[in-house]
C-alpha cells in the first residue's frame, strides 16, 4: 500500500514540480527572517491547539467546579480558574478553536464573493463593473465594526449570523483587490496570446486570471484574518455571537470584567491569547507579502 501511495504521490509531485519549488523557495525566504518565522510558528501552534484542543487541554472547558472558583494561576491551573471554577487554560485553548473557525469561515465567504464580483467586474467591465464598484463604495462608507454590529442585530444573535455579518462587511475589500488584479492581468501579453489562439472567456478566467490573483488573496487573507479575529472577539465582548458558556475569547474577557479588581487573570489571559495570535498573523502576512509579491516590498 505504501508503494502505491508513494507512486501516486510521485506522479503528483512530478505534475506539480513548479508549485513545490515555489513552496520550497517561500520557506527558504521565510527562514531568513526571524519575524516571519515567529509569525509562522505562532500560526502553526494556534492551528494545532485549535484542532487538538480536546486532546491537549487538561480540563473540560464547560464543566463547573465551584469549590475551585477564582483560584489564581498555579501549577494545577496554569491560568487560574474563573468564577465557576472552570480551568482558564483549557478555556483559552478551546477558544482558539472558535476564533480559527470564525476566521476561516469569514475569509472563505468574503474571498469567494469578493473574487467572483471582482473578477467579473474587472473582466467584463462596462455597466456591470460600474454597478458593482458603486455597491462596494456604499459598503466601504460604513465604519466596519458598526456595520457588522447592525447586520448581526438584524439577523439575530448567533455565532453563524455574526460570521455572516463580518463577511458582509469584508467582501468589498476583496472585490476591489480582485478587480484591480484582473484589470492588470487582462492586459498582459500572455492573455492576449491566449485570446488570439481562440481561448474562451471561461478558460482565460480560470487558467490565467484566477491563478494570478492567488498571491494577493493569500497575502490579504492572512493580514485580514487578524482583523477578523479582533472584530469577532469585539462583538463577543459586547454580547454578540458566541454566548456563555462557550469559551470564546471576547466573551471570556467580558465575563471576567466583574472580577478585574481582584481576579485579573480571568480577563487578562484570553486577551493575551488574542493579542499573540493577531500579532503572529500580522508577522506572517507581512512576510508573505514581501516574499510572494516583490513589487510590494517596502523600504
Amino acid at each position, binding site marked *: 500500500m505504501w508503494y502505491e501511495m508513494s507512486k501516486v504521490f510521485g506522479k503528483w509531485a512530478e505534475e506539480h514540480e513548479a508549485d513545490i519549488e515555489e513552496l520550497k523557495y517561500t520557506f527558504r525566504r521565510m527562514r531568513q527572517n526571524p519575524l516571519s518565522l515567529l509569525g509562522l510558528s505562532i500560526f502553526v501552534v494556534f492551528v494545532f491547539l485549535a484542532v487538538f484542543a480536546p486532546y491537549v487541554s487538561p480540563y473540560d472547558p464547560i464543566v463547573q467546579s465551584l469549590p475551585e472558583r477564582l483560584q489564581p494561576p498555579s501549577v494545577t491551573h496554569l491560568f487560574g480558574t474563573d468564577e465557576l471554577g472552570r480551568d482558564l487554560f483549557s478555556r483559552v485553548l478551546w477558544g482558539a478553536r472558535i476564533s480559527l473557525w470564525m476566521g476561516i469561515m469569514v475569509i472563505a465567504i468574503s474571498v469567494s464573493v469578493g473574487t467572483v464580483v471582482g473578477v467579473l467586474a474587472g473582466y467584463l467591465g462596462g455597466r456591470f463593473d460600474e454597478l458593482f464598484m458603486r455597491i462596494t463604495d456604499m459598503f466601504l462608507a460604513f465604519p*466596519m465594526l458598526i456595520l457588522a454590529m447592525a447586520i448581526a442585530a438584524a439577523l439575530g444573535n448567533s455565532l453563524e449570523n455574526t460570521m455572516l455579518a463580518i463577511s458582509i462587511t469584508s467582501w468589498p475589500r476583496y472585490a476591489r483587490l480582485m478587480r484591480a488584479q484582473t484589470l492588470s492581468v487582462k492586459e498582459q501579453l500572455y492573455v492576449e496570446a491566449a485570446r488570439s489562439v481562440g481561448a474562451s472567456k471561461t478558460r482565460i478566467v480560470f487558467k490565467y486570471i484566477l491563478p494570478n490573483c492567488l498571491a494577493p488573496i493569500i497575502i490579504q487573507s492572512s493580514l485580514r484574518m487578524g482583523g477578523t479575529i479582533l472584530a469577532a472577539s*469585539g462583538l463577543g465582548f459586547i454580547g454578540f455571537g458566541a454566548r456563555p458558556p462557550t469559551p470564546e475569547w471576547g466573551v471570556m474577557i467580558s465575563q471576567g470584567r466583574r472580577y478585574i479588581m481582584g481576579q485579573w487573570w480571568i480577563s487578562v489571559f484570553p486577551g493575551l491569547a488574542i493579542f499573540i495570535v493577531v500579532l503572529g498573523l500580522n508577522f506572517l502576512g507581512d512576510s508573505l507579502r514581501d516574499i510572494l509579491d516583490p513589487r510590494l516590498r517596502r*523600504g
Partner: protein
Amino acid sequence: MKIYEYIARRVLLLIPVILGILTITFIISHVFPADPLAALLGPLQMRELRPETIEMYRKRFGLDLPLHEQFFNYMSRLVHGDLGDSIRTRNPILEDLAYYFPATIELAMVAMFMSLAVGIPLGIISAVRKDQIVDHISRLFSLAGVCMPSFWLALVLIIVFYYRLDWLPAAGRTSISSILPPTVTGLATIDSLLAGDIDLFLEVVRHMILPSFVLAYRAIASIARMARSSMLEVMRADYIRTARSKGLSERIVIYRHALKNAMIPTVTISGLMFGSLLSGSVLVETVFSWPGLGWYATAALTNVDFPAVMAVTLVFTLVYSLANLIVDVTYGWLDPRIKY
C-alpha cells in the same frame, strides 16, 4: 476652480453616497430581520400583544406595503428627522442621540488629536532614525497597537492605573458626586471652562485620559506606521538629494522639504482612522461606562433595541463620510498640484 466650488461639488457628491448608505440601512432593517415588526417593537412586546394589535401595528408602520413603497416611506421619515422610538428608553431616538452624541464627539476628537500629535512625530522619528533603537521601540509600540484588542487594553489599564496605582478614574465623564456644568456645547471640557470651574475641568480631563488613550492607540499605531513609510519613501526622492547637496541643514531638509510631502498618505489614513475611532468607541465607551453613542449602542444591542442600533449606525456612518470629505479638502492644502 475655486476652493469653495470644489467643496460645494464634493458636498453634492455626498448625496449619492448618503443615498447608498440609506439603501443599505434600509435593506438591513427591512429585509434582513425574520420579522421587521418584531425588530421594531422588540421580542418581549411582541409576545404580549394580541394578533389584532400586531396587525394594527404592521399597518401603522407600513410594513404591509410593497418594499419599494416602504423604502420611500423610510426615506421621508428620515428626512423629517424621525428615527423611530427606542424600545429600551421609550424616547424618540433623535432625542436620545442628541443627548449622547456630544460625549462621543468630545472623546473622538480628543483621541483624533492625540493620535495625530503622537503618531506623526513617532513616525518621523522612526524614519529619521531608521534601524536605530528609537525606531525599533516605536515600531514595536505601533505593532502592539494594531494587534491588541482595545477593550482588553482598556481593562488592563483600569487594573493598573485605577485598582493598583489609583492614579486615574476608570468610569464616566466625572465623579459620581460632581455635577456636570450647565450644557452649552455639550462638551464637558469646554462647558466646565465656560462655567469658570477649573477644578471640574481638571476632573473632566482626568476622566478622559484612559478612554481617549485606548481609543487613540490603534490610530496612533496606524498613523505612525504610515508616516514612517511615506517619510522613508520621500527621503529617497531626488529633490531631497538636491536639497542636501545644496548644503541645507538636515533639519530644514526634513521639516521644510520632506515632511509636507510625506503628509499626504498620512492624512488619507487619518481619515480612515476616524472611522475606526468611531467603531472603537463602541467597545471603549462600554468598558469605561462613557455615556456616549457607543455605550448607547451596546445598551441597545443587549436589550434587542433594534431601531436604536440602526440609528447609531446611520449617525456614525454620516459622521465618517463627513470626516472623509474633510480629508479630501485637506489634500489640496497639502499638495497644490492637486487641481480642484
